């Protein structure tokens, strides 16, 4: 009852008004004023709810014109055309064969022979010697019936019973049947149902007549509010279990959300953000990090070199001189140095930043605070084939911690903090590692709830050969976190290229659990 749609209410009320003669759909359409589609929808709903039942079902045969019938109406049927051709020939005295009729009237041979057969049987024509056709001047009942039917049905389909018996016979002979679709008429069965209220329907209908249907509305409007008319209305209840229509949100990229969270964690741990440039000199990307110029990772197959300009005009002093000295002889840093001749030209070579540590080196040179904690989420480039685990460019989360209290144990303490805060890991393991610019160096592995033991990052104390030439006299931790695998698990993806997906549907539906 609560769930009655306004259309259903209208139909129910119409039925109460005609208790004695159960109405058909046509009657109901008249009494409710509903569109046929709305009406049949409402009737089906009410039948499904057993509020109404079918009283009687009558089958009527409805005759109508086919497209061929339309053509026959305009251009006459084969029988009419054969008869008229015979009469024309009689008046002009020409001989007329069946072949003549076929070619002149452009009719199918089967149509012509069928028409000739009927006309001959009715005595309207004669077949004389030589297969010639002659008109007898008598009328053809079939041709006349055909014309009458074409005219009647042209104005609309009609029940077959409405025609006289001779017309009905012609109608049936020339109706579309299985195996013969080229006919002017078709006869369809139409089931007409009449409906009456079930006892439950009567109850509902009575209730409706008492309460009135006009009260139910689907949409609250400003007018209803303004006039207070909503007080006399009932609001139709919705089927709220249906699925909601889809909309698109304005929202952050899930990977960026993940990185924003990392950023927030780092800032809340006291880290200051640093930024650098996508293009760097080999000096800041590698030399300042005490990577000798002959180091294998500086090979043409590991770093992208810039085409034009190839070199920076200068490298800032005193860093160039100091880094040169430390590479060559370790002077000033208590080191032996690498013992080779430093190539200052090579230092100016421009490359795409290959490691976030370049940003740390710049920050140290620019006068980092002591104590100071810094981080960057820097886009880096590696000369790698792009595949499921290598992207052309990727984010490196890296940073430094400078302070007089920095040593190997505080390095491990800081990594513990990262494991807890960034990876929510309870178990941590430290392994000896190698990086060209740190000593001692550590690799941190954590037990991830989904991945098991995984490498979370690498860190170490910057070698004095890195810090001293940049004017830093306290120990400095350099750390980097490898978060892409963690991000991929959080976002439920398996291919690193999906972090940079170009598929809007994928991005719209991707969500993170972190």
């Amino acid at each position: 009852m609560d769930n009655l749609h306004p259309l259903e209410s209208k139909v129910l009320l119409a039925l109460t008004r005609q208790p004695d003669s159960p109405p058909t759909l046509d009657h109901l359409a008249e009494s409710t004023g509903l569109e046929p589609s709305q009406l049949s929808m409402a009737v089906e709903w009410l039948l499904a709810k057993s509020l109404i039942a079918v009283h009687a079902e009558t089958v009527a045969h409805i005759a109508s014109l086919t497209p061929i019938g339309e053509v026959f109406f305009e251009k006459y049927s084969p029988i009419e055309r054969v008869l008229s051709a015979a009469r024309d020939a009689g008046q002009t005295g020409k001989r007329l064969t069946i072949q003549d009729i076929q070619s002149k009237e452009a009719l199918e041979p089967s149509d012509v022979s069928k028409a000739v057969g009927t006309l001959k049987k009715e005595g309207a024509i004669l077949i004389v010697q030589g297969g010639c056709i002659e008109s007898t001047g008598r009328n053809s009942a079939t041709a006349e019936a055909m014309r009458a039917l074409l005219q009647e049905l042209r104005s609309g389909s009609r029940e077959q019973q409405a025609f006289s018996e001779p017309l009905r016979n012609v109608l049936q002979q020339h109706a579309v049947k299985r195996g013969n679709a080229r006919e002017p008429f078709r006869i369809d069965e139409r089931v007409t149902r009449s409906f009456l209220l079930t006892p439950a329907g009567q109850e509902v209908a009575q209730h409706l007549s008492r309460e009135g249907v006009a009260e139910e509305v689907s949409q609250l409007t400003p007018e209803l509010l303004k006039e207070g008319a909503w007080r006399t209305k009932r609001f139709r209840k919705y089927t709220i279990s249906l699925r909601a229509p889809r909309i698109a949100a304005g929202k952050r990229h899930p990977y960026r959300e993940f990185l924003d969270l990392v950023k927030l964690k780092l800032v809340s741990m006291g880290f200051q953000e640093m930024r650098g440039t996508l293009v760097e000199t080999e000096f800041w990307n590698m030399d300042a990090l005490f990577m000798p110029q002959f180091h294998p990772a500086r090979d043409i197959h590991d770093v992208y070199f810039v085409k034009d300009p190839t070199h920076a005009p200068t490298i800032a002093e005193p860093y160039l001189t100091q880094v040169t000295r430390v590479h060559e002889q370790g002077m000033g840093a208590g080191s032996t140095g690498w013992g080779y001749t430093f190539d200052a030209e090579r230092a100016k070579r421009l490359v795409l930043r290959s490691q976030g540590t370049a940003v740390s080196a710049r920050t140290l040179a620019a006068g980092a605070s002591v104590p100071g904690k810094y981080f960057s989420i820097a886009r880096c480039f590696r000369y790698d084939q792009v595949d499921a685990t290598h992207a052309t460019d990727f984010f490196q989360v890296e940073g430094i911690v400078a302070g007089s209290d920095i040593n190997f144990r505080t390095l491990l303490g800081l990594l513990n903090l990262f494991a807890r805060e960034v990876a929510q890991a309870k178990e941590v393991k430290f392994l000896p590692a190698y990086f060209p610019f740190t000593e001692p160096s550590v690799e941190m592995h954590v037990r991830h709830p989904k991945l098991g033991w995984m490498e979370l990052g690498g860190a170490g104390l910057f070698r004095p050969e890195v810090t001293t030439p940049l004017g830093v006299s306290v120990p400095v931790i350099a750390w980097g976190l490898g978060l892409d695998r963690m991000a991929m698990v959080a976002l439920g993806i398996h291919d690193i290229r999906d972090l940079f997906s170009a598929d809007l549907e994928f991005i719209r539906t991707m969500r993170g659990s972190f």
Partner: protein
Amino acid sequence: MPTISLQRDDLEALIAGPGEEPSRIPLDQLEQWLMLVKGELKGHNSDTGELRIELQDSNRPDLWCCEGIARQIRIKRQGKASAYPFFTKQQRVAGKLVVAPGLDKIRPYVAACTAVGYRVTASGLAQLIQTQEKLADIFGRKRRSVSIGLYRLAPIVFPVSYDLVKPDDVRFTPLGMETMMTLREILMVHPKGVEYGNIVSGHDQLPVLRDAKGQVLSFPPIINSREIGEVQVGDHELFVEVTGTDLWMVALTLNIFAANLADRGAVISPVEIQSPVKTTFGRRWSTPIDFGAPRTIPLDAIESALGEALGAKEVSAALKSYGYVVKSAGRKVAVQLPPYRNDLLHTVDVVEDVAISQGYARFPPVMPSQFTVGGLSRLEQMADRVRHLMVGLEFQEIISNIMGSQHDFCGKMRLEGTEWAKVVEVDNVMSLNYSCLRQWITPSLLQVETNSSRAFYPHRMFEVGEVAVPDRSADVGSRTVTMLGAVIAHAGAHFSEIHSCLDLLLYYLDRPFTLEPVAHPSFLDGRAGKIVSNGQAIGLLGELHPEVLEHWQIGVPAVALELEIDRLLGEV
């Protein structure tokens, strides 16, 4: 760094040491021990007994072999360094190796020794060859600075000479060939000559090693002679030489080989090198040579770097059981590396070895205690404000790669040959799809649009990201600019839609602006504007040109906005 393959039995025998009964080492125990060498077990084949181990430390070539890994573990288990008398005691030299004048211009240094009494086994030979290859390839930079030759000792008559000859004057049968060839022919025809010939190219004389009878040992660093220079299983007298361009690297490489062969039971005899010029080692010296010198380190330096007061006893025990020679006196320790290592540049290198020897678990983590203030750069703060506003304007954020192709960034955008087509290009292009850095964001977003015709409309997307703008006045030849890009695409997308977004965005950021018409080829003429604020161009927007949409195979109209976030930072 290198990944090497070795046999578990061989490793276990070497860990036990000569004359000791090897025992099976469980793999988890082995993984623990591999921390001593910064090694990681990458694979294990239980059928063949093969282990694959990756070594991280590029300054410890002595560890890139089965013998070196076993040695470091064996020393730790025994608590003291292995004895290698040939490094420390005066030995009778096996012979002389005379260096000819003029080699200093091409490949000056050589070191050599003999190894007698180890009968070469199949797995031992495989290890010797692997070590030879890894050292020459990675440590020796593809044989440029170091290359190694192994020979059967019996046919060699001392003194051996390291000579310079004309390419056509010397002929011998190289390894892998059937016939005699001149050095010139080897460079042109032999696979190793083709691969490594560039190391000696440009010289009219080439290096060659010959014995007293004039038999050619090898043409370093290219190829050995087939007669003498092909060591086989069963050989038990070997001659080893190393040539190269760096005296220390050459000496170190020979020391590693001498230690490795000694670990396998060979008796090492030195070879005397006679140099025409004075070197750090003089004019005559014998190799292997212990070139290390003791270094005195204050205990404080080690303790303060580690954050743990270990005391002299523990420090010296830790270093001894890591292979060092250690003498401690009061608050100072004098340390010296074993001769197969040359990676002590600074005290910190000793500090790490103490920590590795004791195990990192020996050092309880402690939190840094000094107070620091965290924060974001002003640029990042502004970028975040813009991103939040764009999300409020119902745009979906996108993240794209910064590297891409000129065709996408310029060609498809109708910019070829215009001032807007300047990009930072890469010299060593790997793939044409990744040959330059983007100079604006819109192509990245159109890439998404191209792939998303089946996602329901409207499409509203933005990206705040970095671009590289070529600029000769910048110290690295380009500026890195943080840019907002936004695209709206749907059947009715038009200028005023994106204009309204810009208007609202800059209203909230309190940046009054005006639009000036701009003739930009990516946009329809008369439907594109330069965004000007405070007399400065800070971006542009407009309706994308139909030809641009065609290039990207986009079937709906699209409008785009580009805004330099860096320029929003200045004073209004």
